[in-house]
């Protein structure tokens, strides 16, 4: 059986940072397991930037950064974790700069910073509009330098633990199709987000299907704040592909069919740079009230206008956005406004972890978008996720090193491997009465309908019922590719099954959270209710297979909840 002191699952920013941290300690055996080659992880798609109170452009401080983050989170973030993250931010930015990360620079040679939504100062460090790409490449380079071992194109199936300690994972080598138990003293999950639940309209990669999160749920462990899903205001009209907030950071306008910058009605001070939940609701409201645009294909949208920024600025700071707009919308932002509409983007909720990434099972960590530490609460600020992933990737790596150096391997129950083999075998022999594509699309539609930007009791109840129905019907989905080698048909089926499990964990707490907070907006309870709901929701699956919901207090240090105005 393969065996490592530390196994990191996921090779995005969070996984690679954890790997780098652990690779500094000699004598440890560490491996990174990932279903895609590291540089293809979705971190590479991040465009706009990463926040840190460097104060290079305007005076700033980690405290102000923390305050903006807490306020942006609609006071649901755990403030001790936020403070830790913001305090570490400048150092970790410089650490990456020292690794060669090509941040864009000011004239005087220091790291440049741009304004981003919900921030009081230009605080977002960036590399044009390819921040995630260069970050991922840089971290990968450094991992190669340090000789990190990679298991590329391996797929996590399940987590093995004994109720107290983690003993490893079960995973499939996609190339051979073989299923392996992998024993590890510590496992760090860094498997990314699950916005693909909203399959038909999302900014996420095809594989952002919450595999790690679903595995944790199956392992009987808690997920936190799952009802909070961020819809990014500006996805391209047809595909939902992202146009970075950096586009508004650089001065882009949002325009309705009356030619108005309609954000003045919703956030008179911050305008286009209000937090994402507000801007997304504003756009949807404009469309609902007939002030949007509609094309021949029936797509509805508003315009993101960058023309006044001028050719030079667009080419210099937003070259990729221009390319995507041209390729996917046939629109050159230098000459025409870009048609946009909100798109499912980010999972605030995830695996319940503390500020060192620890879960209730010893040796099992979660970091990055799959985790809910929580630093984003009910709404994440742009530029805070790239920060979150590296900070908590690093911290969980550090803590795992300490943990494994004092402890041996926990016994590994091999029947877990057998169980996964059987689960997979059954997919080949199912009756095929249901089609994966149809179910996936139905799931997406019902989630947008019931657990989208605007929510209400009746619709959520329908959605919950429908999701459960889809879960039942999903038992009839069949894998048609009978060979083991690189079976992408099997992979897409496993991913879809994970999405179905996740969907239920989103709707259930959404239904019970009878208030509006951040990205969770209920038309039947439009106000925030701190008295009853200033708390995290926790979902677990009981022995009987049913989901159980409980609540957990929010950590408040110095920022008392106040009304959120921009």
């Amino acid at each position, binding site marked *: 059986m393969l065996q490592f002191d530390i196994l990191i699952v996921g090779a995005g920013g969070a996984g690679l940072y954890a790997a780098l941290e652990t690779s500094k300690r000699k004598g440890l055996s560490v491996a990174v397991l990932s279903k*895609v*080659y590291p*540089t*293809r*992880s*979705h971190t*590479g*798609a991040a465009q706009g930037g990463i926040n840190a109170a*460097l104060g290079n452009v305007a005076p700033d401080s980690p405290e102000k950064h923390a305050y903006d983050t807490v306020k942006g989170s609609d006071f649901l973030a755990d403030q001790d974790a936020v403070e830790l993250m913001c305090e570490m931010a*400048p*150092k*970790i930015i*410089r*650490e990456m*700069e*020292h*690794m*060669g990360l*090509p941040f*864009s*620079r*000011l*004239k*005087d*040679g*220091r*790291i440049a910073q741009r304004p981003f939504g919900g921030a009081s100062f230009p605080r977002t460090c960036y*590399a044009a509009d*390819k921040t995630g*790409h260069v970050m991922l*490449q*840089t971290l990968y*380079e*450094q991992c*190669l*330098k340090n000789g990190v071992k990679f298991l590329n194109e391996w797929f996590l199936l399940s987590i093995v633990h004994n109720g107290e300690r983690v003993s490893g994972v079960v995973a499939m080598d996609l*190339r051979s199709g073989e299923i392996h138990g992998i024993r590890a003293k510590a496992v760090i999950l860094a498997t990314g987000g699950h916005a693909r639940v909203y399959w038909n309209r999302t900014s996420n*990669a*095809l*594989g952002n299907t919450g595999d790690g999160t679903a595995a944790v749920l199956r392992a009987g462990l808690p997920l936190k704040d799952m009802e909070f899903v961020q819809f990014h205001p500006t996805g391209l009209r047809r*595909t939902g*592909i*992202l146009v970075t907030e950096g586009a508004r950071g650089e001065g882009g306008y949002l325009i309705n069919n009356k030619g108005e910058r309609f954000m003045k009605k919703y956030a008179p001070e911050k305008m286009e740079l209000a937090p994402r939940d507000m801007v997304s609701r504003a756009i949807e409201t404009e469309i609902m009230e007939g002030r949007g645009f509609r094309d021949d294909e029936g797509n509805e949208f508003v315009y993101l206008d960058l023309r006044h920024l001028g050719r030079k600025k667009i080419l210099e700071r937003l070259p*990729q956005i221009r*390319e*995507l707009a041209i*390729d*996917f919308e046939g629109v050159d932002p230098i000459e025409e406004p870009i048609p946009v509409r909100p798109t499912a983007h980010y999972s605030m909720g995830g695996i319940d972890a503390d500020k060192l990434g620890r879960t209730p099972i010893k040796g099992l960590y979660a970091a990055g978008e799959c985790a809910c530490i929580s630093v984003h609460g009910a709404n994440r600020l742009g530029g805070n996720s790239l920060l979150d992933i590296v900070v908590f990737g690093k911290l969980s790596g550090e803590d795992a090193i300490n943990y494994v150096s004092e402890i041996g391997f926990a016994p590994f129950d091999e029947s877990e491997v057998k169980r996964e083999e059987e689960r997979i075998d059954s997919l080949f022999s199912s009756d095929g009465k249901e089609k*994966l*594509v149809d179910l996936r699309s139905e799931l997406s539609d019902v989630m947008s309908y019931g657990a989208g930007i605007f929510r209400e009791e009746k619709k959520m109840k329908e959605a919950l019922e429908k999701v459960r129905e889809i879960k039942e019907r999903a038992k009839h989905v069949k*894998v*048609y*590719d009978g*060979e083991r*080698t*690189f*079976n*992408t*048909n099997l992979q*897409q089926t496993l991913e879809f099954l994970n999405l179905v499990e996740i969907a239920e964990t989103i709707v259930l707490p959404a239904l019970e959270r009878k208030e509006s907070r951040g990205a969770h907006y209920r038309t039947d309870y439009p106000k925030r209710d701190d008295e009853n709901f200033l708390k995290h929701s926790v979902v677990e699956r009981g022995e009987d297979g049913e989901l159980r919901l409980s609540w957990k207090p929010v950590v408040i240090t110095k920022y008392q909840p106040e009304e959120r105005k921009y």
Partner: protein
Amino acid sequence: METAVLQVFRYDPEKDQAPYYKEYEVPVEGTLLNALLYIKDNLDPTLAFRAFCRSEVCGSCSMKVNGKTKLACKTPMKELVETWKGKPLRIEPLNHMKVIKDLVVDIDKPIEKMKTLIPWLVPDPRVVPTDPMHESIIYPEEMEAYKDQIHCMLCFSCYSACEAVADNERYRGPFAFSKAYRFQVDRRDIETAKEKRIRYAISGGLWSCVQCQKCLYVCPKGVKPAEDIQNLRGQAVKKGFTDKPGAKKLKHFVDWIYATGQINRLYLPEEVYGNKEAREKLTKAYTEMGVEVWEVPKPTKGLMKFRDIYLEILSKEDKALDLDYSHVRKIDKMVSDIFKADICTIVDKAHEEGRSSRGLISKLKGLLGGQ
């Protein structure tokens, strides 16, 4: 709805004796990736291909369409149909890598090759602070030097298209040299690492590149490996790695082109490989075949102006020192000896005869990497 036929390469080593092509009718809508997803969702779930971001950033989905390397998510179906005028579109996996299944190839080897070129920063403590309280100071202008290279997303399109990879198993691949070059021009990287990279690049086939420019044309991210390779060669020469035939070849090219506007095939074997008989043998062989040979090409109209431009280009590239004037003077002398006049007079005469030197400059630009 308008449709097109894709002939997709299929091969499952587990069960197929040999590869075959399967036809699928797909809507002409969105990108080639959309078409493949359409097949997988509606026609044939067994088809294997890689795709992830679907927005041109992850580098998963490069493949060949009628022999041309394409990034599937960046290639509109409409454009394909228009280009190929309704002919079937043959979709195949990338070259030079083993097929794992259908359109999925084994990319481990090019990654391993890249690793030999130190494609990471080795910080120079004089520039990069060792504590996390300070930044290195890097001016925006400096970053121009590697602004394209950092966009490489390891899609291996260039590797698939490369002539040198086809010829030479050891050849590291276009992208690998670009990744290496990116650090050669980063001030934060230490000199000793730069020195090593050059050495490893040379043993990794730096001089095998034939400058066919294919890598540059297929790269979906605007990286220009062919240029980076020329620049690495320049660095190699400057660092004194001139004993290699490749370095000598470059010198031969630079000097002869400056002097006469052309390389000289007759002298090449002697100057590069030290083969003294080659010139005579070649001359003899050509003459016997009835081909007219000139020991040195006759200078053409505009040569002097051309020399100025050439020098200017070299200086801009910081490569003026690559020119060996004593060698150039020798060539000049050969010219005057053969044509019985000094070079300026010959050029003036050529001018009167109205012969043109157009074409030279573009050839030269190609040689220097399109500057």
